[in-house]
C-alpha cells in the first residue's frame, strides 16, 4: 500500500549526484545547478520511482544524466580556477584533487560519463550497464580503457610539469 520514500535519506544521495555532475561538468556552480534540478525533478516525479527497477541513487543519476544531456553543454568543462592554482600554496590533498579533476576534464564525453558514474556516483559496473542500457562486460572494458587514457593524461602532465616550471623560471 505504502511505497518506500526514495528520498528519505537525501544527504548521501546529494553527495553522489553532485560528484557525478562535477566529474562530468566540473566542480562548481554548474554541478550545483544540475544537482538542484535533479532533486526538484525527483520530488516532482517521486511517484514514478519503482524500487524493483533499482536503487534510488540509480534513479536519481538517470534524472541527472538527462538534465546534463538536455540542458548543459558537456563540451565546456568548468576548468576555470584549476589552471590558476598555485601548487606551492596548497595542501597536497588539494593538489591531488585538482590534478585528477583536470585530467578527467581532458577525457572525451563518453569516458567522462563512465568515470563519473563509477567513481563519482560510486555505482557498480552492473548498475552502470543497467543505467546506460549496455552489457556489464562492455562497461567494464570501456571503464578499463578510460582509466588507461586517464593514466596516460596524468603521465603526460607529470612529464610536462618540469618543462612548464622551467619555462616559468626563465
Amino acid at each position: 500500500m505504502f511505497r518506500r520514500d526514495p528520498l528519505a535519506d537525501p544527504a548521501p544521495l546529494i553527495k553522489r549526484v553532485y560528484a557525478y555532475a562535477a566529474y562530468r561538468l566540473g566542480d562548481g556552480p554548474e554541478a550545483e545547478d544540475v544537482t538542484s534540478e535533479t532533486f526538484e525533478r525527483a520530488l516532482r516525479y517521486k511517484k514514478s520511482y519503482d524500487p524493483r527497477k533499482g536503487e534510488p541513487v540509480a534513479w536519481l543519476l538517470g534524472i541527472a544524466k538527462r538534465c546534463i544531456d538536455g540542458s548543459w553543454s558537456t563540451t565546456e568543462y568548468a576548468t576555470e580556477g584549476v589552471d590558476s592554482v598555485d601548487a606551492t600554496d596548497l595542501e597536497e590533498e588539494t593538489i591531488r584533487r585538482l590534478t585528477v579533476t583536470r585530467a578527467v576534464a581532458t577525457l572525451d564525453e563518453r569516458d567522462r560519463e563512465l568515470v563519473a558514474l563509477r567513481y563519482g556516483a560510486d555505482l557498480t559496473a552492473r548498475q552502470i550497464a543497467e543505467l546506460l542500457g549496455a552489457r556489464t562486460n562492455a562497461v567494464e572494458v570501456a571503464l578499463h580503457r578510460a582509466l588507461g587514457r586517464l593514466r596516460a593524461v596524468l603521465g603526460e602532465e607529470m612529464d610536462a610539469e618540469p618543462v612548464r616550471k622551467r619555462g616559468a623560471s626563465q
Partner: protein
Amino acid sequence: MRYWRKRHEAFDLEAELRTSRPEPAPELISRLEARARDHGRSRAGSLRVAFVGALTAVMVLALASVGGVGYASSAAEDAAVSVKRVVSPSDVISVIDRSSASDQYKKPAKKKKVKAKKKGKGAKGKVKARIRPPFTG
C-alpha cells in the same frame, strides 16, 4: 606535481578518483535536505488527514449497521437526565405519597366538626336535644 612524482611507483588511480571525488557545499546539502523534508511533510500531512477521515467513516458505518447509533442516542439522553439531576438537586429526592408505610404510619386525620343536623322543615332557631329520659320518680 610533487605528489605524482613522490608516489609514482605505487599509484592507484581508482583510489585517487574516489578520494578526489568532488563534494558539494554544505549549504547545497542543507538546502536540498530541507526541500526534501518539507515536501515529504506536506504529503504525509494530507495522507494522515485522509486516513483519519476514512477511518471515521468506516467506524460510523459499522456502528450504524448494528444499531449503535440509536444506542448511542439513548445513552446520550440518559446522560442528559443524569446531568439534569445533578444540576437541580430538588428532583433527586422524590417522596412517594402512596406507599404501604405511609398508610400504616400516617398521621390521623383531624376530625371534622359535625354540624348539628337541622330538624325538620319547620324547626326554627336552636332546640336543645334531650339526652336523658325524663325523671319519673
